[in-house]
């Protein structure tokens, strides 16, 4: 039987540890992806992910279902990401290795994908990562929540705690910067890959 998040929360509050573990299994990957795209470091993203669930577990008795559990979890994770950025006083670092490991690439290849396509895909992913790292934190967060987590403008506004129009403005500004930066990459030595 598949429980909803809210049912699992209720069971967790009543002392069922397995239910909270099920929530962790259900949400650890989205939360990790959110943290990684926001702060750009694998290890720190993992720490943020763990800390998110730890704080959620501690605060669970106070969770009254006024918001969706996922939104509540996202808010905790975003606050932790924001703390991380402020504490570190730096923009997200892009982990982009200079050399390309063909064995790793081969392992990541899709069945019908040539090695050229695979390298192009990796280059594209790296270019996006670099461009995202240039964005101010609030624009980056808005784009990550909208683009990769499919939240509505209203949900993002509720999460971040800002007006709806501000969310749209941040998205517009962020996408405009990304458009410019990706166009720069497209005209560079690896341009053809980015122009696909």
């Amino acid at each position, binding site marked *: 039987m598949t429980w909803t998040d809210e049912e699992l929360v209720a069971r967790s509050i009543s002392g069922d540890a397995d239910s909270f573990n099920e929530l962790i299994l259900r949400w650890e990957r989205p939360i990790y992806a959110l943290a990684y795209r926001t702060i750009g470091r694998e290890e720190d993203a*993992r720490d943020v992910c763990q800390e998110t669930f730890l704080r959620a577990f*501690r605060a669970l008795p106070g969770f009254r279902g006024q918001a969706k559990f996922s939104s509540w979890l996202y808010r905790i994770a975003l606050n932790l990401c924001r703390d991380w950025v402020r504490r570190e006083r730096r923009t997200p670092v892009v982990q982009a290795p200079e050399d390309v490991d063909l064995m790793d690439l081969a392992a990541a290849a899709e069945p019908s994908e040539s090695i050229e396509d695979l390298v192009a895909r990796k280059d594209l992913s790296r*270019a996006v990562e670099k461009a995202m790292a240039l964005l101010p934190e609030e624009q980056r967060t808005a784009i990550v929540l909208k683009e990769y987590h499919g939240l509505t403008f209203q949900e993002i506004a509720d999460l971040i705690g800002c007006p709806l*129009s501000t969310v749209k403005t941040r998205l517009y500004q962020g996408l405009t910067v990304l458009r410019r930066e990706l166009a720069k990459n497209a005209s560079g030595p690896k341009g053809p890959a980015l122009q696909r």
Partner: protein
Amino acid sequence: MTDMRCGYAGDRDDTLIAYLYDDIDPAARAAFDAHLAGCEPCRAELEALGGVRTTLAHWNPPEPKSLAAANPQSATRNPPWWRTIPAWAQVAAALLFLGVSAGIANLDVRYDRNGLAIRTGWWKPAAQSAQGPAATEQIGVASQSGVGQGFSPASKADLTALERQLRTEFRSLAATSSVAGARPAASDAEILRKVRALIDDTERRQQRELALRLAQAITDVNAARQADLRRVDLTLNRVENNLGVEVLKNRQSMQYLMRVNQRQ
């Protein structure tokens, strides 16, 4: 960033974003559709931002290795190939392995008028020939019954060896007789008795050798069987205990969370 040539009445940038993500109410959408029909800059920017979104889709975070390793469900999502084999098939494979092992050992089990006979492939024909008539007798029986066609060359070799041995022994007996001089020549019956004694002695040595070889073969097969059974048993235990391991991992992770929570 709004193009100065665009004369959209409302908040053009917000509307463009809402339109881009299709998170817009129908009335505003219809109005912007009408605007787009006559506004080339807005159409161009919408297309460009759509291209940015397409490019963004190529950015995937790296797979969190430690999270995947700690995730008990990952084991059930992608079970190892051997877990997909049913238990009966694993047992059948083990039995097949035992059969192949016996075949490699060239184990030859035969029951005939001489009783039960077991041989292994380690029994070399050269050794047989040196061991004398008993081996020849058994091989001869097999040849007559038509079962041991593959032993024909060995039979000839054994017969030749036996003939050579008998000639040698006869010569040694004759020499002994001549050295003794005064002693009367041995009768045919005496010679025959001695030859039979020699044959009996050789046969006993051969039987001891056979027993040793057989014990070695049984020991080897038993060792292989036990190792294989252990492997099958381990595999079955892993399959059966899979759920238990997952539950244990879940409990451990929760205990960790509880401990950290109590510390803080």
